[in-house]
């Protein structure tokens, strides 16, 4: 065990991947000379050179599409997009090509690409750098959606993702990069199909992922002080969803709160809520509750942004409304 940051863990994951497999290369805007917009790739250019740590022009569609083509051509590209908002410029390539080629070709054309991008708010970056659109991508068959929320997952999910023969999108919440944690240096490639129970509890299942895992965990601590034993589930993968872990938890706790930084309408939280209602309705002692971002483009002013985001008091309130810990 060693203390590290999420950012350093992600960097180490890429360094490790490029050392291990010469087919792996990184490309994106300012990943090289600048060291990465969020300094995730700092130092990699010096170690691997400009062919494998490849700065791109501001051409999201072309360099994501080029990643897809390179994957078809036998490489294992890691493509970095600065933020999920910018990924919309590459939506054609991600949705119309990466997600479809295997099926459309009758199983002939695998696209083993990993596309990493920052997501989420909390840094006063306003409405074009702060949204959480990973739930959108989770709508699309053919994509695997990962949301590492711990230093271990930041360090070890990439390995498994690069072994996946199909396209994988990794969403890194911008608020997590500076987070410190204990890294298990011997862990190795981790499962990217299952959710993880981060805190065991008996009274309510708090289901979340990515940037709101710390929120859910802090809320669980506060609830413990009030005598409510909350279970915290880190989804880790938004597509495919790990129904088994979600449903078995709800079967024990009989209550579920979904915490999602995405907007409520048409969200991944809506999907999770629907699945619980469809499959575990009679296990529930209370309606499924959701804590999501306010339905506004993210505002700049700190107090407004804070008010828009799912925070600990919102989770506590949702649990109280279920008749617990009030």
């Amino acid at each position: 065990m060693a203390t590290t940051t999420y950012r350093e863990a992600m960097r180490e994951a890429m360094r490790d991947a490029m050392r291990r497999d010469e087919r792996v290369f990184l490309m994106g805007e300012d990943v090289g000379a600048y060291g990465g917009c969020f300094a995730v790739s700092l130092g990699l250019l010096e170690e691997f050179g400009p062919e494998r740590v490849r700065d791109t022009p501001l051409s999201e569609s072309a360099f994501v599409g080029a990643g897809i083509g390179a994957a078809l051509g036998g490489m294992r590209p890691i493509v970095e997009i600065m933020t999920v908002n910018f990924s919309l410029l590459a939506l054609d390539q991600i949705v119309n090509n990466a997600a479809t080629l295997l099926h459309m070709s009758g199983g002939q054309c695998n696209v083993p690409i990993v596309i990493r991008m920052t997501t989420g708010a909390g840094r006063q970056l306003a409405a074009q750098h702060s949204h959480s659109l990973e739930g959108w991508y989770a709508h699309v068959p053919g994509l695997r959606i990962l949301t590492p929320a711990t230093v271990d997952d930041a360090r070890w999910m990439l390995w498994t993702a690069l072994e996946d023969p199909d396209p994988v999108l990794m969403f890194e919440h911008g608020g997590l990069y500076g987070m410190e944690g204990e890294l298990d240096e011997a862990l190795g490639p981790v499962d990217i199909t299952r959710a993880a129970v981060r805190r065991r509890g008996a009274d309510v299942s708090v289901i979340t992922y990515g940037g709101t895992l710390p929120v859910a965990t802090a809320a669980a601590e506060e609830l413990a002080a009030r005598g409510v034993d909350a279970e915290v589930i880190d989804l880790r993968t938004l597509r495919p969803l790990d129904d088994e872990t979600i449903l078995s938890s709800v079967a024990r706790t009989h209550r579920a709160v979904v915490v999602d930084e995405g907007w409520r309408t048409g969200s991944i939280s809506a999907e999770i809520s629907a699945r619980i209602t469809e499959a575990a309705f009679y296990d529930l002692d209370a309606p499924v509750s959701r804590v999501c971002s306010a339905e506004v483009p993210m505002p700049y002013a700190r107090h407004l942004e804070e008010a828009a985001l799912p925070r600990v008091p919102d989770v506590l309130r949702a649990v109280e409304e279920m008749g617990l810990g009030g």
Partner: protein
Amino acid sequence: MTGLDGAHATHLLEQMLRVRRMEERCAELYTQTKIRGFLHLYVGEEAVAAGILENLGPDDAVVATYREHGHALLKGTPMTAILAEMYGVAEGCSGGRGGSMHLFDAANRVYGGNAIVGGGLPVAVGLALADKLAGRDRVTACFFGEGAVAEGEFHESMNLAALWDLPVLFCCENNLYAMGTALARSESQTDVAIKAAAYEIPSWPVDGMDVLAVDHAAARAVDAVRNGGGPHFLELRTYRFRAHSMFDAERYRDKAEVRTWRERDPIDLLADRLRQEGLLDDAGLADIEARVAAEVDGAVAFAEAGTLEPVETLTRFVTSEPHAGREVR
């Protein structure tokens, strides 16, 4: 004239005829509802695919558009598998999941069949990037229409290919209409080759109705690309004789214009020249037509005998084989 290689030219004629006769049959089969969905025919443009693909080898790659039957066929995809794909049967080159617009054949390095205008260009750039990174001397030929030059992906891809000096041959099939929108109604600069030149890509226009001219230009361009000359761009000036798809009232162009272009039918142009030079006679042409007709008949019979993919396999190929799940720790 001198210097015409009769055997080579006759081979090109046969290649064009294979595409033409296959697609004429496709049109019939469409009216018989054997083929459904959108069907975009290449009739009139055959010299482009025939001339370019003549210069590619088995290891070279092709990325094409939704008007790609000829490209797949001439890259080596069997006509049987192409017809079967249009029939939507399991024996199709995409297993019946792609259809006319999405012919794939990984063994022959045919990477679609892309039905998003401009969407294939970045993929072609990436295939070429993989070759460059791996030190292979393969060429990726990317076909797209002049309509694609209005897309951002066109410009982004030109820039990336040139910036990274990648082995791509861009083949702009300029048939003057983006579906029904004439080039002059959609572009402030209608000289397409100039757009590529702006990215420092060697580019030049080619008479796309003259297969020998296309063949000659492609030989030169492919050779340059393969030998480290970076991306090259050919603007192939051609014309679509038939409707954009199968339903098209053709309100956007004059019948006289179509007639004028039909006078330069690439197949007739070459056949006439071969006759003039004494390199082809009626019997020779009849032999070619008979071979092609037999191939088309065989392909249709193959497709007719095709089997439907079981519905139980509906969700197959959305992702690859189940993931070798590891423990979450």
